[in-house]
């Protein structure tokens, strides 16, 4: 029987530090793809990059939301419970972190915790696994951490992404932060980033 013990970081202290620095650099330099240490997955339904961010950021102090495909796999739930102790919530609005294996099961951004004007830090950070971080439609990004402007082209973004993101940006300092992961890498889009379609 699979107790969810397999997978995870071989060296939790140093690998979570390395993964954290990648995530930190990703949010401090939006759009700049950072290599992310990708540990073994307990089951094929959860991509290794989600495992990496999950183990690095969550513990019993952080409520987490999992998309349907992840929540449907008992091996994922056991893994999360055993390695992090994080309470899994069904309401996206209660999540400190949301993990999604793909955009198709992701609620709209405004369904997550957007924080309050006085405590904007209490919002959800969404970690979304996509097929690829480059090769999709060209987007132009501006904002803190970006010199002049940058370009990103992730594949597999949620529907009406630009519209959803603009609404999220309007809420600043409230709003969700987004980490896109794929192919052993992470790309950060903090709420401060402005995104427009490229040409």
């Amino acid at each position, binding site marked *: 029987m699979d107790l969810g013990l397999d997978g995870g970081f071989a060296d939790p202290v140093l690998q979570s*530090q390395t993964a954290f620095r990648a995530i930190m650099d990703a*949010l401090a*330099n939006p759009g700049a793809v950072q290599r992310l240490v990708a540990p073994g997955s307990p089951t094929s339904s959860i991509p290794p990059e989600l495992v990496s961010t999950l183990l690095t950021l969550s513990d019993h102090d952080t409520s987490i939301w999992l998309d349907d495909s992840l929540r449907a796999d008992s091996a994922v739930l056991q893994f999360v419970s055993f390695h992090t102790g994080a309470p899994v919530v069904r309401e996206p609005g209660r999540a400190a972190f949301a993990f999604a294996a793909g955009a198709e099961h992701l609620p709209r951004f405004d369904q997550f915790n957007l924080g309050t004007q*006085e405590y904007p830090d209490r*919002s959800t950070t969404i970690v979304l696994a996509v097929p690829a971080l480059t090769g999709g439609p060209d987007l132009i990004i501006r904002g*803190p951490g970006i*010199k002049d402007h940058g370009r990103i082209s992730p594949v597999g973004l949620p529907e009406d992404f630009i519209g959803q993101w603009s609404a999220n940006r309007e809420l600043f300092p409230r709003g969700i932060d987004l980490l896109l992961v794929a192919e052993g890498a992470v790309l950060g889009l903090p*709420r401060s980033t402005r995104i427009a379609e490229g040409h």
Partner: protein
Amino acid sequence: MTTLPQYNFAYLDEQTKRMIRRAILKAIAIPGYQVPFSSREMPMPYGWGTGGVQVTASIIGPDDVLKVIDQGADDTTNAVSIRAFFAKVAQVETTTHTSDATIIQTRHRIPEKALSKGQVLVYQVPIPEPLRFLEPRETETRKMHALEEYGLMHVKLYEDIARHGRIATTYAYPVKVEGRYVMDPSPTPKFDNPKMHMSEALQLFGAGREHRIYAVPPHTEVVSLDFEDHPFAIQHFEQPCALCGAEQVYLDEVILDDRGGHMYVCSDTDHCEERRAAGHVGDLGVKEAAE
């Protein structure tokens, strides 16, 4: 090595690091906003930069190279102790050279040499709330930040002008980050404020006693508060560094004797040493023998 007590890597336990790391990520996403965190006891007293030490401990890895400065100097007791602490608990390489460091922890100065991409500057902050001396209640200052109500701060600066003919604040001079949050740059001289603007480096601020972490990402607008008729200006020094001849750097007065003799030298000791090693000589300096 065998006699060392058992520490987790970088001293802090993993749960504490995760909590601080989460606060750092939020701080980066909301530039200038003070994120509350549960500060831990560190094996050094408050005032020794426990906030900065906790931030550094949460981000540092074995491949980092750490520099620690106190008022610009690498060789004060505080700087030496913190450097030794991390050399022991994280086995990291340390340096005094600004350009060799990946993480620079600082108390009250920003290095003269422009920081570069990938470097992280960690500030030790005693009082993170720029509005605290105007409003002692945390609930009120939080509301003021929420509503972007910074009128009181401008009133205080304007009172300065009325009384002194200029804005008298020279340390912890308030800045506005990315047009939104008013932020305390920690008690650095206002001379350093322009270095925060559009820096290539990530700037992280840790206040241990006050349980706050805040951040300025690279390439972020940091503007010192001022008025159209009284624009912000940095301190100017009449003379260059007496040892290396540097101009447009922050100088400290050094007393030479008990008859009032004194000289002005670079506050950034590494900057001064590098310049002297490169052959620059000030009025009271001695030409380096080895070149």
